[in-house]
């Protein structure tokens, strides 16, 4: 049976990551020329060993599993931390074959990579880059964690290629979510190394891992939004009462707590299925996105609304959570797309 709890080791990892992020995440940098915090990333990757948690120690990783990776995702969501974790430590690590030389560099945090697909990709993407021998041409839009990546993993009909960022043209996109900005990529005879002759299974596995683990980030976002709003409802007074004493407020927060309780079980199930390569993983991943993605949006929307005027300001951090949650709801397949995938997986045809 799937273990839906957190182990002691996982809780210790959470405590370390939370302590680091609470000291170091600085959202004021998000409008600067360097919104992504590579210094923070290096501490997270090298000092805490989070860049390759599921990679064996012999291959430069931490020898843990995707369950621990999910715990880190929860904390990154809780702080909407601008680090290239999803692209490198999740999508790229999941995509690379275990004997690929790049895996060691990613696992140690020496380099970062990302998967060159639009962030909105859910499954079986259409390849927009063409390989002539080992030279790549074409473009890919709205790629996450692209601005700071050292290497791109590029799926083509002729296989999965690794292209050095120095040879790829990157155009930053004014992103809805500045905590995880996206960029457009152009390849023009770009030299690349063939990673594997068939990209589809590797990319499919990466997207499945991404969908399964993004749920944990969404859980972290929802938990921050709920906790922050509950605290505000206890301190904010109107009509000489704490606003949290009104049922109109407290019932909404109770409903959110109930949904977050479910999201925790759903996200843990997806992480556990991924860690154990469970045959139910496709169901677990789509379930996780179908449930946790709207929940995180709902939590962030409630956070803005129940904060009233201050929640609508740039000054209050609620908007970063709303933007991250809303972009996440598109990332790796919308809830509607995952419900459609579930329809096939559990034999409930349209």
């Amino acid at each position: 049976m799937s273990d839906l709890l957190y182990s002691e080791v996982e809780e210790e990892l959470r405590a370390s990551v939370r302590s680091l992020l609470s000291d170091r995440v600085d959202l004021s940098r998000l409008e600067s020329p360097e919104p992504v915090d590579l210094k923070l990333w290096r501490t997270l990757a090298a000092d805490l060993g989070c860049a390759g948690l599921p990679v064996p120690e012999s291959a430069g990783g931490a020898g843990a599993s995707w369950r621990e990776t999910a715990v880190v995702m929860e904390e990154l969501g809780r702080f909407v931390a601008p680090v290239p974790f999803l692209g490198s430590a999740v999508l790229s690590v999941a995509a690379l074959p275990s004997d690929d030389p790049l895996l060691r560099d990613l696992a140690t945090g020496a380099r970062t990579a990302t998967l060159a697909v639009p962030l909105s990709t859910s499954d079986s993407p259409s390849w927009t880059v063409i390989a002539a021998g080992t030279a790549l041409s074409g473009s890919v839009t709205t790629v996450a964690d692209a601005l700071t990546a050292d290497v791109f993993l590029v799926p083509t009909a002729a296989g999965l290629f690794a292209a050095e960022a120095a040879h790829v043209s990157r155009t930053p996109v004014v992103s809805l979510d500045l905590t995880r900005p996206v960029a457009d990529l152009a390849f023009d005879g770009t030299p690349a190394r063939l990673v594997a002759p068939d990209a589809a299974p590797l990319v499919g596995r990466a997207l499945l891992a991404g969908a399964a683990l993004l749920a944990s980030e969404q859980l972290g976002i929802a938990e921050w939004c709920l906790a922050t709003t509950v605290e505000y409802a206890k301190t904010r007074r109107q009509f000489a009462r704490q606003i949290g004493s009104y049922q109109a407020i407290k019932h909404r927060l109770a409903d959110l707590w109930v949904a977050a309780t479910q999201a925790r079980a759903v996200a843990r199930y997806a992480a556990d299925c991924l860690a154990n390569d469970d045959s139910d993983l496709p169901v677990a991943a789509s379930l996780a996105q179908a449930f946790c993605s709207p929940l995180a949006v709902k939590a962030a929307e409630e956070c803005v609304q129940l904060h009233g005027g201050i929640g609508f300001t740039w000054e209050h951090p609620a908007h970063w959570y709303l933007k991250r949650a809303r972009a996440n709801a598109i990332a790796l397949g919308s809830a509607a797309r995952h419900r459609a995938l579930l329809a096939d997986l559990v034999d409930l045809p349209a």
Partner: protein
Amino acid sequence: MSTADLAREFLAGHDVGGTDPLEFLRARFDAGLAWVQYPVGLGGLGLPRAEQPEVDQVFADAGAPDNNPRRIGIGLGMAAPTILRHGTDEQRRRWLRPLWTGEEVWCQLFSEPGAGSDLAGLGTRAVRDGDDWVVDGQKVWTSMAHEARWAILIARTDPALPKHQGLTYFVLDMTAPGVEVRPLRQITGEAEFNEVFITGVRIPDTDRLGAVGEGWAVAQTTLMNERVSIGGQAVPREGGTIGIVTDLWRARPEVRSPGLHDALLRLWVDAEAARLTGMRLRQQLAAGQPGPEGSASKLLFARLNQEISSLELDLLGEEGLRHDEWTLRRPTQVDFAGRAAGYRYLRAKGNSIEGGTSEILRNIVAERVLGLPQEQRADKDVAWKDLPK
């Protein structure tokens, strides 16, 4: 010797088929194998509650007669823990054995027409008269009252005190003169519940549980145990109500439409999320990490049952216009799966009202789990008799 071994030893000395079922159950009670967490002499062995399921399993495997626990659920789940905690030795000896064997059915006289969510506002009066109390009032939503021998009852003994302070907890003999039970017909046409009219009924003071004026505190034992029993069993995927509509969807392609497909998948996701939440809750309890998550399960269960049963009617279309029956039946347990879709839709409406309305449960989650402040109240520190009614 393990508790399961004790059960096997008992079975070796008692013929499952040959003994009269009631004699068998009495003997099992006397051997301490009824509820092992109870004290020796009262059906138990003073062991952890967690050891009971394996005892039950040994008896079930042997085909032993059981006490029909669903018929006596109120006795087992609510009356017994309250008697154990607050009763005198004599009261425990008198009531617990026939309660457990099922010889005496129990019911609960708490809710009143004027006191539902606000139970502590109840108005049934008990007035002391010599060695007795004389009780007048009306109770409602009483399941099994028409079969019960005993009732647990809360009544107001001092209207001049604030509402929580003037209450006292009694055990009422349902065969006493002045107790009238009428079926309460519900929106499904049947009557699972009753109204109970209490007119000049005499209760001996020896049938009082706990001190005079301590009724609210005693009732907390009863209500806490009610919530413990709403936890839920492990079910497989699609094992709950959702299975009824997924089976229908697969078997009958003609009911399918794009809009209903989306509605079905949304509910499938919610049902599976609720199932995993229950699984996680049980893992927490097994690991000795009880959390507040259990408070969520009844809220979830009520909403899911209501939405799924409503979708089923939409799926059935014209067929949903046909119902099975509106006969005034007196079921002792709900046959949710065996009835027409309309029955499920209507019965599920009760899920968000019975055992605490969803609105009250949200208050409880908000105040006890999230620590939000209470709603401002007009009934604190005011004599019950002076409250607006």
